[in-house]
């Protein structure tokens, strides 16, 4: 008997390799549908997340190595939210230098300060609402001056 989620957790997010696709909440379902065939349901983070193509390929490749044929299905609904990112993954993001998103919030209604992932200061400023990937915005710490990425609530 395979533990499919354990296998899937070996696959890092292509753009933020410190967290895996299960931690990120992209994997919505995984089950064996016959002796050597699995059905994996994934959901995109953003409509245009370019990593989705890689993730599908990575899943098929990894399962093939284990002798399983993976059928990957992409479903949009229910729509992905940053609330699905596990607490463990949030801490991994912070250590990696990305401020994790708040839970249960929408970015537009969010007035709480973004904590610097390096020194923990709340005295930070937004440099750009956008960043190097669709899921991030750019900030800078006013105390330690470190520029950092912030994972937007979505």
């Amino acid at each position, binding site marked *: 008997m395979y533990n499919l989620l354990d296998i899937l957790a070996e696959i890092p997010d292509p753009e933020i390799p410190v967290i895996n696709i299960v931690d990120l909440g992209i994997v919505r379902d995984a089950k064996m549908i016959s002796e050597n065939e699995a059905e994996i349901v994934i959901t*995109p983070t953003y409509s245009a997340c370019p990593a989705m193509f890689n993730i599908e390929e990575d899943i098929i490749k990894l399962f093939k190595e284990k002798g399983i044929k993976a059928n990957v299905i992409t479903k*949009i609904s229910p729509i992905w939210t940053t609330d699905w990112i596990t607490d463990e993954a949030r801490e991994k993001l912070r250590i990696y230098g990305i401020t994790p998103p708040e839970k249960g919030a929408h*970015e537009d209604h969010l007035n709480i300060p973004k904590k610097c992932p390096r020194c923990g200061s709340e005295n930070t400023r937004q440099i*750009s609402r956008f960043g190097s990937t*669709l899921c991030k915005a750019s900030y800078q710490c006013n105390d330690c001056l470190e520029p950092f990425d912030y994972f937007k609530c979505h």
Partner: protein
Amino acid sequence: MNPLFNYLLKVADDTLIFGQRLGELCGQGPYLEEDIALTNIALDYLGQSNNLYQYAAKVQDLGKTVDDLAFLRLEKEYLNCQLSEMPNGDYAQTILKVYFFSVYQKILYTILQVSEDAQLAAIAEKSLKEVKYHYTHTSTWIKMFAGGTEESKTRLKNAVENLWEYTAGMFAETEGEKDLSQLGIAPNPQDLYENWKFLVAEDFRNFGIEIPENEFMQKGSRTGYHTEYFGYILCELQYMQRTYPNCVW
């Protein structure tokens, strides 16, 4: 004629052409952070188009792919609004265009997310989160332009005058759209338009911008008739697929 297929093209072609136009600014933005902002928004648009074309191809059921629909139709088969074709112009015009479109998309997707068509509803719900963020970004800039220097105010005023007559075109109907509206699949475009005018008027009042008195509106959006700019956009957009048929990335 399939009304749902037409409707999906209408929504998808808008985001495709808006995305293509913003993509022109890749590496040319006024400064690095805004360059990234514009291309991020462009990428969101392309993702939305991709989801919609995928569904349209399924609805059409002729074995077409997303690429066929995006790259291999003729000019008259595109149902995007003429506003999407307008040149980027200066930064006031670039931002104002996206602002007008974001207000429209916000209302559109809010209604579509409870559409009787489950797949369209899912795509709308997904896109709405992205569009809200575009609205926040562009309305912040417009507020800044409106409260800025004489130069920024003049440029914003010029942009409003240039683009205003193309705004009604966003709400032009496609063939069969009324039937979809009666089935609860798509919203009534006239209601959308009233809603849009109300929200823009409210924002403009807050920003201190005047709405042009001239009520003239350009006609022909979503009928296959385009502005003179469209041919050039298609040339660039379709170049690779026309020159190297079936090439893949």
